[in-house]
């Protein structure tokens, strides 16, 4: 069936910090130059912010550059950080450590990134950006010469077998002179672009973390607005990278999260259970007693930093934000760099579209060139050796980080490298099962009651968006060799090994629970799981994560 077509100067895939910042900067440039520019943002979430999840402590540097009058415009930055604590946990102990300079947050704000994005979307729309939430870009379109022509949204109303249902509505082709991919960590179209244009050649493999977050309304006596606590140590074993954050927002709300490096090697490890167990620590538990949990969600983040940055441009488009991977891992911040990359790309794209040599399908190499000269590049360069040092374990890594930061100021004459997360799992007979405590229903919970408050839903009658390249691999490889790690790393209970009628194990995929964190796509040992976008509007509906 012929698809309808819409034409824009720039199409941006993803309404997060980088995509929205890019759209705003494009319109600002167009206004300054007195030119018309058509910019469209596609967002797979049901609304802007619905799929946004972050800590978050925001460094306002990029926002300041984007909209210097953000205070007057009512940006939702309400809680300045007032105190930083860095704590090493033992099973029963909690010891304050000096706060590493990367983790000092003076001048930063505790925010809901979802609400910041909602506000950015209002600014963008006021400038004339067309924003379409509820539409997922499902396919990259190419010109005959191989350059990117735009994207197509997914069909709506398909039956589970892929045939058109009664209400079938075919996708729409969005053609653009430049397409910016701002899909966030592990973008599903970005994956295709990596292959097609060999964008990862020469870069380290990306390494990831899985962040699981809950939002709590706590007892007022436990609340100290502006307080930021980070912990390392328990419940992680010393070899596994991971740690927590507790951010005290306004209105007696506390955001608590736990990030586990997805290069963990024990297939029995469950990031979700580690997060729950963490809250039972005697130094942590009192914060949540007498409170109530109001939201839950999870999202993978790119931790590879400098070494893992791919080629950012290709004919007809560019990668911006965390789908490229600009997170500063020691600072645990990526929103400011995501926005900066979007703004830098926007400036270069605007020049390319309006300059003398403007042509559709051009490769805007000015974007990476300008990015290399920006503070973003310097910031990521200096941070580059910290995350890989955690391969040696917690204490050596802390010691090395101090040397790298204080002695070399991030400019050590070497660069450590990353390895691919999915290759790290040990076989089950070489690993120790972990016995996690049962949820108490007070501060700890099970997966299903957690997913329930992420407001996640997918139209039930549609093709499964968690596709398997080989349907035998889950049992033959994942279960038999690795004890079925997908049942543990998925924070939403999507993957379950159940017995079929004849008592044989089989993988059941509860796709409607998926919170779009992308962990399965990253960690599946043989990369057999391919996460593709479901029908637009599906997934979580985070209120203010």
């Amino acid at each position, binding site marked *: 069936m012929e698809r309808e077509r819409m034409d824009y100067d720039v199409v941006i895939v993803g309404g997060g910090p980088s995509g929205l910042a890019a759209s705003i900067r494009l319109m600002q440039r167009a206004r300054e130059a007195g030119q018309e520019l058509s910019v469209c943002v596609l967002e797979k979430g049901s609304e802007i912010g619905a799929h946004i999840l972050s800590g978050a402590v925001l460094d306002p540097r990029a926002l300041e550059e984007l909209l210097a009058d953000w205070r007057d415009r009512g940006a939702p930055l309400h809680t300045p950080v007032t105190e930083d604590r860095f704590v090493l946990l033992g099973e029963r102990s909690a010891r304050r450590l000096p706060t590493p300079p990367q983790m000092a947050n003076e001048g930063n704000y505790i925010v809901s990134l979802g609400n910041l994005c909602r506000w950015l979307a209002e600014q963008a729309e006021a400038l004339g950006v067309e924003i379409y939430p509820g539409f997922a870009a499902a396919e990259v379109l190419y010109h005959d010469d191989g350059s990117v022509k735009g994207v197509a949204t997914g069909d709506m109303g398909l039956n589970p077998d892929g045939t058109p249902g009664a*209400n079938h*509505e075919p996708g729409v082709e969005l053609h653009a002179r430049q397409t910016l991919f701002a899909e966030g960590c592990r973008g599903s179209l970005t994956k295709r672009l990596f292959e097609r244009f060999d964008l990862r050649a020469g870069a380290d493999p990306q390494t990831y973390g899985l962040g699981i977050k809950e939002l709590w309304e706590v007892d007022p006596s436990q609340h100290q607005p502006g307080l930021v606590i980070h912990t390392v140590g328990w419940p992680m074993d010393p070899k596994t990278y991971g740690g927590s954050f507790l951010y005290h927002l306004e209105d007696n709300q506390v955001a608590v999260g736990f990030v586990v490096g997805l290069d963990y090697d024990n297939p029995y490890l469950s990031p979700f259970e580690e997060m729950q167990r963490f809250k039972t620590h005697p130094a942590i538990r009192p914060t949540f007693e007498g409170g109530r949990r109001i939201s839950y969600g999870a999202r993978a983040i790119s931790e590879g930093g400098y070494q893992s940055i791919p080629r950012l441009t290709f004919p007809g488009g560019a990668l911006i934000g965390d789908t490229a991977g600009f997170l500063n891992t020691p600072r645990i911040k990526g929103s400011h760099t995501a926005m900066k990359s979007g703004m830098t790309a926007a400036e270069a794209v605007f020049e390319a579209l309006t300059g003398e040599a403007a042509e559709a399908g051009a490769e805007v190499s000015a974007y990476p060139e300008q990015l290399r000269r920006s503070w973003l590049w310097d910031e990521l360069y200096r941070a580059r050796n910290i995350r890989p040092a955690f391969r040696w374990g917690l204490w050596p890594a802390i010691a090395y980080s101090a040397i790298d930061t204080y002695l070399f100021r991030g400019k050590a004459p070497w660069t450590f490298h990353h390895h691919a997360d999915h290759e790290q799992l040990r076989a089950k007979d070489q690993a120790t099962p972990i016995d996690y405590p049962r949820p108490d229903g007070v501060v700890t919970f099970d997966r299903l009651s957690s997913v329930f408050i992420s407001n996640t839903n997918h139209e039930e009658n549609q093709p499964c968006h968690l596709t398997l390249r080989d349907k035998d691999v889950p049992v033959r490889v994942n279960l038999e060799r690795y004890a079925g790690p997908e049942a543990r790393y998925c924070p939403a209970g999507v993957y379950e090994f159940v017995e079929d009628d004849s008592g044989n194990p089989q993988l059941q995929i509860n796709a409607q629970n998926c919170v779009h964190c992308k962990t399965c796509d990253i960690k599946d040992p043989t990369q057999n799981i391919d996460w593709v976008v479901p029908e637009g509007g599906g997934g979580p*509906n985070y209120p203010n994560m």
Partner: protein
Amino acid sequence: MKVLVTAKRVVDHNVRVRVRPDGSGVDTASVKMSMNPFDEIAVEAAVRLREAGQADEVVVVSIGEKAVTDVIRTALALGADRGIHVDTDAELQPPAVSRALAELAVRETPDLILMGKQAIDDDSNQTAQMLAGRLGWGQGTFACGIEPADGEVIVAREVDGGTRRVALRLPAVVTADLRLNEPRYVKLPDIMKAKRKPLEAMSLADLGVAGDAGLTLLGVSEPPGREPGVRVADAAELAARLRDEAQVI
């Protein structure tokens, strides 16, 4: 035939609602809002009437703060011809809503008013009935089928154990039940086109309606949590506990 459809903006059906800590209402800050699903069915029904040549104009109205224009735009993208936004910051109850709609009906003179059978936020299921009463029009509630005929409309109504068909002389008020239709997906180009469709704004006062008098919200609370279940060893213990503790046998 001219059709007036009502559309209310409510907390999205996928969102678990949460009562504000002070019990003053449901927390809607940053919460995903959508068109009431039953109203969506009503809009779909109206658009199908027009597509079938049985209606020549579909007007959609929503009452509330500025944000309800989102819902109107959605209805316009689904195929309605023009929108009316009745602006008010007050959270109105069915008496005031039906009064405002009655005033609007006098001005717009629709032949048919299509509404959702109820809104999924307060589940009142009163507005259409009050509206029909105020106008002195016939009403066909819980519709699972609508067939316009000469000067009247045949409505199949969902009733216990089956359907009841009634003929209403036009003008009439009809409310949509779940089985009436399955609303279409909004098409992306239609969202853009909807931005250019006319949307008229007026205030509640323009309609001569003051708001709800005599209604005060006392408080909102969540249902009490369920006690966790217990495991019993055998049938004898079960019987004993049902008798002694639960006192139900």
